[in-house]
């Protein structure tokens, strides 16, 4: 084994990213807990965590940029660093989604507690599980378990669509509940985004491990070729 220092730097980058993943996962758990309990103290914890996540994002990007500039990585190492940069951005956005949820909870806390026809807890649990599993696939460098995460996204999307349908119905039929329904809708949307970020992390793991770009596979398979259409 040569380039020992480089390999150590790659390991350190991975460790930093796992720390970032832990922070993002904790943020989403706290945000959903804040929703469940309407606890503003937990909302504050999410906001504080968001600052730490943002700081970490910059540290990781700097470390990755340094490695690209100084070590000229190739092949699996190049793919790892590119994936690390993308995963870093996805995790930061998970933190943003958690912050969005906690802001909605702050608004809801001032309103009366009303039961809404949407299972936020189940959605949150599924989205968190996707984040956790995508990070586990990253730890294990396991493309197969990353593919399993991709398959979970459809369920969250379906729940989001059902939430949209049910909550717009509430808005139309019970106008006085529109603010609460809107907040619930925004939270469901934020959780759907978290699932999307977890999906992207899993896609980045597959790219790193197998060199395969699986992004947009469904839409690109059925889309007409822009070259054939004369658009490019």
């Amino acid at each position: 084994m040569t380039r020992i220092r480089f390999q150590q730097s790659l390991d350190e980058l991975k460790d930093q990213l796992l720390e970032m993943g832990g922070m993002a996962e904790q943020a989403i758990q706290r945000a959903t807990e804040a929703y469940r309990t309407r606890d503003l103290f937990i909302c504050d914890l999410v906001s504080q965590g968001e600052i730490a996540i943002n700081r970490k994002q910059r540290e990781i990007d700097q470390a990755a940029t340094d490695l690209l500039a100084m070590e000229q990585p190739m092949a699996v190492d190049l793919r790892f660093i590119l994936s690390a940069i993308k995963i870093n951005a996805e995790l930061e956005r998970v933190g943003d989604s958690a912050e969005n949820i906690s802001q909605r909870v702050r608004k809801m806390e001032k309103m009366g507690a009303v039961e809404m026809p949407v299972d936020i807890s189940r959605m949150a649990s599924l989205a968190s599980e996707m984040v956790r599993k995508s990070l586990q696939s990253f730890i294990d460098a396991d493309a197969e378990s990353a593919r399993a995460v991709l398959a979970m996204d459809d369920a969250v999307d379906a729940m989001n669509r059902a939430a949209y349908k049910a909550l717009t119905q509430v808005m139309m039929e019970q106008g006085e509940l529109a603010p609460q329904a809107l907040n619930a809708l925004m939270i469901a949307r934020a959780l759907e985004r978290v699932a999307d970020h977890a999906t992207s992390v899993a896609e980045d793991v597959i790219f790193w491990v197998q060199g395969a770009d699986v992004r947009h596979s469904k839409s690109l398979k059925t889309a007409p070729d822009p070259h054939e259409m004369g658009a490019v």
Partner: protein
Amino acid sequence: MGVGIEVSNLNAWYGANHTLQDINLNIPANHATALIGPSGCGKSTFVRCLNRMHETNPIARVTGSVLIGGLDIYANAKPVEIRRRVGMVFQRPNPFPTMSIYDNVAAGLKLNGFTNRHALDEIVERSLKHAALWDEVKDDLKKQSGASLSGGQQQRLCIARALAVDPEVLLMDEPASALDPVSTSKIEDLIFQLKSEYTIVIVTHNMQQAARVAEKTGFFLNGRMIEFDSTQKIFTNPTDKRTEDYITGRFG
């Protein structure tokens, strides 16, 4: 991509040492192909088999066939014909030290009996322009010695010398490894320009250089061609674990 050089069942020996083993390869015409691999892997021996230089060593031996533009250089070609078709540039620039810049470029043609002064002037100018050296040397072409140029200029002079005989193939054995980054960039720019007209094979230890200039890359290890593919594939997602281990610096 048409085939510029077709290599079949090529084997080479230095004494009892079997330095190249069963190489089969189609090198695309009018493109740059990079050969990479650790020291002693056989890549330099391989390019020396493409112009029959390997056999100039008395203990060396070659079997197999190499077709350049349909000519089997191991079957029925004369060395003079091979040298005309295949130019070569080495690691250290090696201009003829006592000759002027002009005579360095014209040397190959004169050796072939070319005497038309006017045509010679044109070819020297065209070759130096092709090698991106003309503007730097045109004012003192016949007095200034080739050895008085900088290392980077000397290497471009050697490229001009190789181009003067209008070859089909240009072999480059680590052409920029003795040069500073600016001179290296000039050589790389030059390779980029020349490859539309010549089939270029470049041996390099600098993998970024291979990535920058070549469309195809071959990885050699222990006298064998382990992998040959598009440069983009080799450097982002090689098929063979040994290629990946080498280019990521895990050995070599």
